[in-house]
C-alpha cells in the first residue's frame, strides 16, 4: 500500500513540476515573467507565420544559364537547398515555394521563403545569403569578344567573366565535399564528389575540354581554374586555391549544407503582422479550454471516481504536451493547435476503454482491485491497436506533408503517443492507489459508471 502511495506522490510531484514549468515560461500567465531566468524566458511557445507573423522573402533566380526544359527541375533543387539551409539554422516550419514565371507573375523564376517568427529580416537574409553558389564553367569558344577594362592605375585588365561560359554542372549535383591536405605541399584543398548525374556531366565536360581550362566558380567568382589533362570519369574534382585550413573548413561546411544550383538575388522582403494571428491564438486557447471542461464534466459524471482520476491524468497529459511543445520546440500553427485540441479528445479514449472494461469485470463479480488490474490488462490490446492506426496516419502525413500538414501531424502524433503513456502509467497508478477505499457499497458505487447505482 505504501508503495502505491509513493508512486502517486511521485507522479503528482513530477506532474506539478511540468505544469509549473509551463506556467513559469509563459509571459501571459506569469506576472513576474521578466524577472525569470533565461531558461524559462527561452521556453516560450513558438508560433507559426499564420499566428505570429514572420518574414516573407522573395528571391529571383537567374536561370539564364539553364536549358529551357530543365528550369523547373533546377528550381525544385534550389528550393530543396534553401529549405535545408533554413532548417539548419533552426527555423522551424519554413515555407519555401517556387513561383514559376508566367504571364501574371512576371518573367522571373522566383523563390518565396516564409520564416515564421523571424522578425529580424536582416538575419534571415544573411543566413540564406551564406548558401554557396557553385558553378563549373568552360572556356568560351575562340572568337568570343573579350571584354577589357583599364583600371585606375592604367593597367589593362582582361575580364575573366567573358572568358568562360556556363555549363550544366552546378552545386546541385554535388554529393559531398571533404577538406584534404596536399601530400607534398601540405596545402589545404577541397575535394568534391558529384552524384551520378554530376559524375556523367563532369566526365563529358572533361572529355570535351582536354588541354583547356575548366573554371570552378564560387559565389560568382572563379576560385580555381585547373587545366584538364584527361577525362575524369569518377566524379571527383578538387578545388585547390589560396585558402587557409580554417577557410577551407568553412567552405566545406557551406558546400555540404547545400550548394545553390542557380544564382539568386533578393527581390522583396516583408514582415507579416500578427493581429489576425493573435485572434486565432485566443480562439484556439478558448476552444481547448471549453473542450477540456466539457470532457472533464462528462468523465466525472459518467465514470465517477475513475473519471476524476482520468481528469487528473488528462491535466498531467496537457502539461506534458505543452512542455514538449516548448522544449522541442514545436512550431504551432492554427492547424497545429487544432491537432493538439483533437488530441485532448483522443487522450481520454484509452481511459474510456479501460473504464468500460473495468465496469464489465465488476459486473462479472470481481473485486474492485482485481477488476482494475483486469481492466488495464484486457483493454491494452484495443488501446494499442487503435492508437497505432492513428499514429500510422500521422507519420505518413508528416512524411508527405507541406509545412502546414507537418505541424498538424506532429502535434496529433505526439498527442497520441503521450496520451498512451498517460493512460497506461498515470491513470493506472492512481486507479490502483484508489482501490484502498475497500470493497463496500460506496466503493462499488464510486467505481461503477453510467446510470447504474
Amino acid at each position, binding site marked *: 500500500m505504501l508503495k502505491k502511495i509513493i508512486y502517486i506522490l511521485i507522479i503528482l510531484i513530477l506532474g506539478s513540476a511540468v505544469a509549473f514549468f509551463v506556467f513559469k515560461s509563459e509571459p501571459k500567465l506569469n506576472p513576474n515573467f521578466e524577472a525569470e531566468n533565461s531558461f524559462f524566458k527561452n521556453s516560450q511557445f513558438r508560433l507559426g507565420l499564420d499566428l505570429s507573423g514572420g518574414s516573407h522573402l522573395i528571391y529571383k533566380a537567374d536561370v539564364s544559364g539553364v536549358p529551357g526544359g530543365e528550369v523547373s527541375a533546377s528550381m525544385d533543387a534550389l528550393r530543396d537547398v534553401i529549405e535545408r539551409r533554413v532548417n539548419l539554422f533552426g527555423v522551424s516550419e519554413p515555407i519555401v515555394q517556387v513561383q514559376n514565371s508566367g504571364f501574371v507573375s512576371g518573367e522571373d523564376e522566383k523563390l518565396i521563403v516564409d520564416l515564421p517568427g523571424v522578425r529580424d529580416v536582416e538575419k534571415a537574409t544573411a543566413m540564406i545569403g551564406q548558401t554557396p553558389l557553385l558553378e563549373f564553367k568552360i572556356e568560351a569558344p575562340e572568337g568570343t569578344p573579350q571584354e577589357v577594362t583599364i583600371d585606375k592605375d592604367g593597367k589593362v585588365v582582361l575580364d575573366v567573366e567573358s572568358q568562360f561560359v556556363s555549363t550544366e554542372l552546378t552545386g546541385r549535383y554535388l554529393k559531398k565535399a571533404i577538406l584534404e591536405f596536399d601530400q607534398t605541399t601540405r596545402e589545404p584543398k577541397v575535394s568534391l564528389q558529384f552524384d551520378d548525374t554530376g559524375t556523367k556531366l563532369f566526365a563529358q565536360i572533361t572529355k570535351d575540354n582536354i588541354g583547356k581550362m575548366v573554371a570552378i566558380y564560387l559565389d560568382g567568382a572563379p576560385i580555381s581554374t585547373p587545366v584538364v589533362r584527361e577525362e575524369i570519369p569518377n566524379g571527383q574534382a578538387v578545388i585547390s586555391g589560396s585558402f587557409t585550413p580554417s577557410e577551407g573548413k568553412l567552405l566545406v561546411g557551406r558546400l555540404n549544407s547545400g550548394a545553390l544550383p542557380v544564382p539568386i538575388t533578393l527581390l522583396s522582403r516583408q514582415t507579416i503582422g500578427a493581429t489576425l494571428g493573435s485572434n486565432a491564438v485566443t480562439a484556439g486557447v478558448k476552444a481547448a479550454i471549453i473542450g477540456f471542461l466539457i470532457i472533464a464534466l462528462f468523465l466525472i459524471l459518467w465514470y465517477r471516481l475513475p473519471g476524476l482520476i482520468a481528469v487528473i491524468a488528462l491535466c498531467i497529459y496537457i502539461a506534458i504536451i505543452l512542455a514538449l511543445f516548448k522544449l522541442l520546440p514545436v512550431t504551432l500553427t492554427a492547424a497545429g493547435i487544432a491537432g493538439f485540441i483533437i488530441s485532448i479528445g483522443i487522450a*481520454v479514449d484509452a481511459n*474510456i476503454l479501460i473504464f468500460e472494461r473495468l465496469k464489465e469485470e465488476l459486473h462479472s463479480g470481481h473485486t474492485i482491485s482485481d477488476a482494475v488490474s483486469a481492466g488495464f490488462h484486457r483493454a491494452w490490446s484495443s488501446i494499442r491497436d487503435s492508437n497505432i492506426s492513428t499514429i500510422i496516419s500521422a507519420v505518413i502525413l508528416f512524411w508527405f506533408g507541406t509545412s502546414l500538414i507537418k505541424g498538424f501531424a506532429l502535434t496529433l502524433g505526439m498527442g497520441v503517443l503521450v496520451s498512451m503513456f498517460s493512460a497506461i502509467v498515470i491513470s493506472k497508478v492512481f486507479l490502483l492507489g484508489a482501490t484502498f477505499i475497500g470493497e463496500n457499497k460506496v466503493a462499488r458505487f464510486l467505481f461503477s459508471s453510467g446510470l447504474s447505482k
Partner: protein
Amino acid sequence: MFIIKNKKIFLSISAVLVLCSVALLFIFPLKIGIDFKGGALTEVVYTSSRPAQADLDNVFKTLDLGSVLIQPTGELGYIVKSLDLNEAQHSLLLKTLSENGKSPLEEKDFNSIGPSVGRELTRKAIIAIILVSLAIILFIAFAFRKISRPVSSWKYGLMAVVSLLHDVIIPIGLFTLLSHFYGAEVDTLFVVAALTILGLSVSDTIVIFDRIRENLRNANKEIFSETVGKSLNQSYMRSVFTSLTVIIVLLSLFFFGPESTKYFALMLTAGMFFGTYSSIFLASPLLVLIEELQNKSK
C-alpha cells in the same frame, strides 16, 4: 443481435449515403482554393491611415474575388492573399482596398503564386491517401493475424478500409454542400481532414474488431454471426464514447476556435460521426456478410 439481423438495411443506408455523396460531388463541383491552384499576394501601404480590417473584409465578401485573406503588415499596410487575379480583378482589388480612393495607398508588392506548388500538393495528397489505406490494411491484417478462421485476417483489413472510404466520402459529400452554399474551398486543411479521418475512424473500428478477436479466441464453436453480434453488444458503447469525446473537442473547435480551422473541424466532426456509425453498422455486418457468402460458395 439487432444490427446483425438487419444488416442488409444498415448496409443499404451506408450505400445510399455514399452514392448521394458521390452524386453531390458531380452536381456541385468542389471549389478549389489557393493552395492547389495558385493565388495572388498583394502588399499595400496607406499614405495616411489604414481602413479597419473588418470593414475591408465585409466589402470583399460582397465582391466576386473568391476568398480574400487580409493580414496587417507594418504600421500602415496590408498583405492581401487572393486567387489568381487578372488585370481587371487586380485593379478592382486595389480600388476596394483604397475604399474607392478615399484612403490613398501605394502598392508595394504584387505577386501571383504559380500552380506548380498546387500540383505537387495534389500529387502528394493522392500518394498519402493510397499509402495510409495500404498501411492500414497491412497493419490490421498483421494485428489480427492469429485469427484466420472463419474470415481471414486481411479481410478484416479490407473491411476496415471499406468503412474508411465510407467515412471519408460522406464528409466530402457534405463539404460539397458547404462549398456550394458557403463558399468553403478545398485547401491544405481539407486534405489534412480527409487523411485524419482515415486514421481516426479506423481506430474506432479496431475497438470492435479487437473484441471480435478476443471472443473468437474464447468461443470456437459459436456461429460467427453470433460472436460478432455479441462483440458488438459488448463494445459499441465504448466505441460511441471514444468518438464522443473527440466530437466534443471538435465541436468546441468549430464554435470557439480560430476562423481558419472552422470547416476543418466541421468536416472532421462529420468524419468521426460516420466513422462511429460505420464501425458499428457497416464494418462488422460486412464481416458477417462475407462469411455467409464464403459458406454459400463452398
